[in-house]
């Protein structure tokens, strides 16, 4: 294949990765930004989203788009509810202590994974895409559904940004993030905000998973990769920074797509890790993060 089309394919693949990564990483970044909780179980919420998408779409017969749309609405809600329960039962009782919550979320990771193994099983199961349109380019065919993931993710990111910057909910979240004690003094129910933010973070991961599951599959171990990549993205972008998360996700997604296509996937991972190291050395707060107070 010639260089031009080759690069185009690499860029398209990279953008799909970026789109999903941005949503997943945003969830992780929000939870850390507001609550100072490093949620190691984030990848498992992603996995739960995919597994539930499979369950919902197989339960609904008819056109595949019906099942998919139902999954897109219901799966994140269920995952959000599970996250809320986990937050109430575990994180709150640890007073959101940073070290303790890391250990606790590692525990949650294994519990969720084993529950998925027990009730869903070890198989990878496919979910039918809502539509299957193959875009025929002169050099190769490309999935129309993959392109729609990029659009859907962009819309969701804009919606999240609007909520954070233009609504009262966003204002309360930002106030809690800025100084939780003062926010509490001004009558903001910090506890409830924390619960909501944790659920929202998990729901973003679940939405990302529902979007990707028709081109991937639902599998109980699928949470590991997105977790690692999300960490890379939030470290590079700056924890709690929406703009940083998106920029870093596009950077990592594209470099992964292009480097792994022209050179090797291992080199792409090396570059991503090197980027993390460089950012930590020269700009520990991340590209767009603000220095901690």
């Amino acid at each position: 294949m010639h260089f031009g089309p080759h690069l185009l394919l690499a860029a398209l693949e990279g953008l799909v990765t970026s789109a999903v990564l941005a949503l997943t990483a945003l969830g992780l970044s929000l939870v850390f930004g507001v609550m100072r909780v490093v949620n190691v179980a984030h990848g498992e919420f992603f996995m739960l989203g995919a597994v539930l998408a499979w369950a919902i779409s197989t339960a609904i017969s008819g056109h595949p788009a019906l099942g998919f749309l139902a999954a897109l609405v219901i799966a994140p809600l269920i995952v959000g509810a599970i996250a809320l329960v986990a937050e109430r039962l575990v994180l709150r009782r640890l007073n959101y202590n940073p070290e303790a919550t890391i250990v606790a979320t590692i525990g949650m990771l294994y519990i969720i994974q084993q529950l998925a193994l027990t009730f869903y099983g070890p198989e990878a199961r496919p979910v039918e895409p809502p539509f299957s349109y193959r875009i025929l380019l002169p050099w190769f065919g490309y999935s129309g559904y993959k392109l729609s993931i990029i659009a859907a993710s962009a819309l969701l990111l804009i919606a999240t940004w609007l909520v954070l910057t233009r609504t009262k909910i966003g204002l309360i979240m930002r106030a809690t993030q800025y100084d939780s004690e003062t926010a509490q003094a001004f009558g903001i129910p910090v506890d409830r905000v924390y619960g909501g933010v944790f659920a929202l973070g998990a729901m973003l991961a679940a939405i990302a998973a529902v979007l990707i599951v028709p081109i991937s599959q639902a599998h109980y171990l699928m949470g590991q990769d997105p977790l690692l990549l999300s960490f890379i993205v939030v470290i590079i972008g700056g924890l709690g920074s929406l703009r940083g998360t998106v920029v870093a996700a596009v950077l990592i997604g594209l470099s992964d797509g292009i480097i792994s296509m022209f050179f090797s996937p291992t080199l792409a991972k090396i570059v991503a890790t090197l980027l993390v190291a460089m950012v930590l050395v020269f700009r520990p707060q991340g590209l767009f993060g603000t220095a901690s107070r």
Partner: protein
Amino acid sequence: MDKSKTFNLPKTGLTRRTALKGLAAGAGLAMAPGFVRYSQAQSSAPIKIGFQSHRTGIGAAYGRWYEKTTAAAVKAINAAGGINGRQVEVIIEDDGTDPGRGAEVVGKFATQHKTDIVFGTLFSHVVIGSAPAAGEAKMPYFVVSEGHHVASTKLNRYVFQPGITDVKSQIQSMAPWIAANAGKKVTQIFPDFAFGYDHRDYLPPALKAQGADVIAQIAIPPTESSFTKYFPQIPAETEVIYHVMVGPAVLTFVKELGEFYGSNRPQLFGFIDSLEAVDINSPGLEFLDGSHFWEGSPRYAQADDTEAQKAYRAAVGIDDNGAAVGDPKDVSTAAHMFGCWETLYVVKKAMEDAGYKGPEDRAKLVEATEALTAFAEGPEHPQGPKTFNGKIHQCFGIQNISKVEGGKLKVVHKTKIEDGLYEAEGDYTTQAL
């Protein structure tokens, strides 16, 4: 943030009461029925087979079916009087499809469960990781893998693969068909670990001998979940794409290949590993229609199935489509799992030949297994007849090439045992026991 609340471990230690409770519970357990010692003679105690199973990890679908097949075989063996008049008991430990844990599991069988042998696993990296532990413990280790690792004589004298043919032999017997029917310019796509390397290393010479060429080899990391980015490496003049993928991402691989090529695709020849435990009628797999697959034992019931094959399918509980009876979505790993059934019958034969009584006879068991030469097709070997080479601890059997037609796999060619024979690369029997 308040650091003082980090970890507030209870300060109370072990009290006398807790200690007594623990002791009492322990004593109670020891007296429970499961712990009865066979005081009379060893001859009435069951033969214990440690089963190293992929219960979790990327091999889990295989592990589940390996367990079902093993349970069915053990049930049949016990119903017919067991081995040397003793019942067979299977103890299962999960290896997580992980080489490190695999080795631990073998150690656990040797020292904790004190099993007579260890049996089981599929994934080559687990076998390779576990083999040294089996050798050190002088524990006969019967694997139902597929890689060339046993036959290459790179492992040790305690490792056997008597129930399924190795990749080098499989490839060699199928290369003539590929060259004659699919095409002469072949691009290989294989997983980037031991099992994939067998394909990488043995296909080019096997095809060369048939006047065909491997023009590109594309290695894909086993954890990869998206494949489109590899497809531009497939040369335009490719006539056949030879694909062998393992793990949960196989379906994605085929779907993306379909999107990339559409109907204008090269011929496809796949190792069934790309499709094991996957419903062939899954969305996106229409692309495979008309392509060919290797199958050790056919997934779909065939018109010319032997009585032994029918009885075996009924015993392991798979229907004519190779799915679990009563659950058409639960597709089996039919092309590999027959190896568990057959290996257990090889173990039975070898233990009877050796007059095996207990772990002190393990060396005799190794020698008795090495003395075996052939297994006739029948209820004990439903996949087909096999020869066994005691020097390399490897069996050789027939292979099936099947065509995807109307959402089913139909066998179109069966190879002969001789097609897959090759020169032995070493001799395990020269190693000390």
